[in-house]
């Protein structure tokens, strides 16, 4: 039985629920979880019910890393830290945007905790608005495709690099579609002393507009097209990159999602898709994926 109990209000096929389950099952009972506001927090804790089988706290949207810092400091001061793992699990909005300050401070202070970003590439809980993690040309409710727009014109913020620049001893990317790999990385991150970070790709069927049954399938396409590189960084050095043998063109990933559909129907869309392909190509070169 998972430590994330059923009966929660996540969508059928929810990527955040998968992520939460994998994190808890990788880490076990001796874990304290801090959540910022977001889908995972809201659908798991409608008072008086909670899906969390471990101690859990939600404070505000932008302060999960600061709250986690405080939990860590308290356990140390009380002499109760032992092997208890402290994990903050937050969405991309809470992590890359509004929570960036608190994360920066927590990593710079060097608290012994792990921050896991569950990245579904938009502010999903409030209705699919763009965030700093929304990829190029994704259509969201605040960056919609339209007569004169191909959707989000901005590039995805490179959060793992920002964390690595803080001197974190362990940074990794993962995906809910590659569960054993994700759990291995989460476990490793929790075991490494100091502030560690795992950035998890989480395909959201509701926000990205695909059938709930395809969550894992879409996640695999992201990796197989090099749109989501899987790698680890240990003390700032990239290690253990997942290489791709038969890399697929990005169209295979884009065409199964409603948020990119406009690229296939609008005039000039094909040209714009090349820019997305360029991102995948850059990933391959930069991370040495082939």
């Amino acid at each position, binding site marked *: 039985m998972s430590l994330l109990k*059923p*009966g929660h209000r996540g969508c059928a096929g*929810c990527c955040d629920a998968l992520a939460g389950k994998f994190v808890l099952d990788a880490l076990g009972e001796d874990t304290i979880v801090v959540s910022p506001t977001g889908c995972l927090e809201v659908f798991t804790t409608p008072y008086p*019910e*909670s899906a969390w089988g471990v101690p859990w706290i939600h404070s505000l949207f932008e302060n999960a890393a600061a709250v986690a810092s405080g939990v860590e400091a308290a356990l140390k001061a009380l002499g109760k830290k032992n092997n208890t793992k402290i994990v903050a699990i937050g969405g991309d909005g809470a992590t890359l945007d509004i929570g960036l300050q608190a994360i920066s401070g927590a990593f710079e202070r060097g608290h012994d905790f792990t921050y896991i970003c569950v990245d579904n590439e938009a502010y999903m809980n409030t209705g699919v608005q763009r965030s700093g993690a929304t990829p190029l040309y994704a259509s969201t409710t605040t960056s919609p495709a339209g007569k004169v727009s191909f959707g989000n014109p901005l590039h995805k913020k490179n959060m793992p690099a920002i964390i690595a620049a803080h001197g974190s001893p362990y940074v990794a990317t993962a995906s809910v579609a590659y569960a054993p790999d994700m759990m291995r990385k989460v476990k490793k991150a929790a075991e490494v002393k100091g502030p560690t970070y795992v950035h998890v790709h989480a395909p959201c069927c509701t926000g990205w507009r695909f059938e709930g049954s395809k969550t894992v399938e879409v996640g695999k396409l992201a990796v197989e097209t090099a749109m989501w590189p899987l790698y680890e960084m240990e003390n700032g050095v990239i290690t253990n990159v997942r290489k791709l043998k038969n890399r697929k063109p990005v169209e295979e990933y884009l065409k199964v999602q409603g948020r990119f559909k406009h690229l296939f129907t609008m005039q000039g869309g094909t040209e714009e898709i090349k820019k997305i392909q360029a991102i995948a190509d850059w990933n391959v070169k930069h991370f040495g994926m082939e």
Partner: protein
Amino acid sequence: MKLIIKTVAKPGSTRANKTGAWRSFMPVFDHKLCSKCGICAMYCPEGIITRLENGFFEPDYEYCKGCGICANECPKKAIVMVLEGK
């Protein structure tokens, strides 16, 4: 129900909410095709597919939302989504 003042709640109390009522399609498991790989249980977002003693897998229909990930991922096509009768 007594309010616990710190807005705290007992762990796992969401089990009171039977999300099985949500679904339109239900997964049907064919053990003859199953290779016992466990991928279905791994990728169930509700965590309600459990391994039986004989190694096969079974969903808890009280909570299954009918998302279909298990059927989509099964390498043996041993799970089929079937429209649930009334």
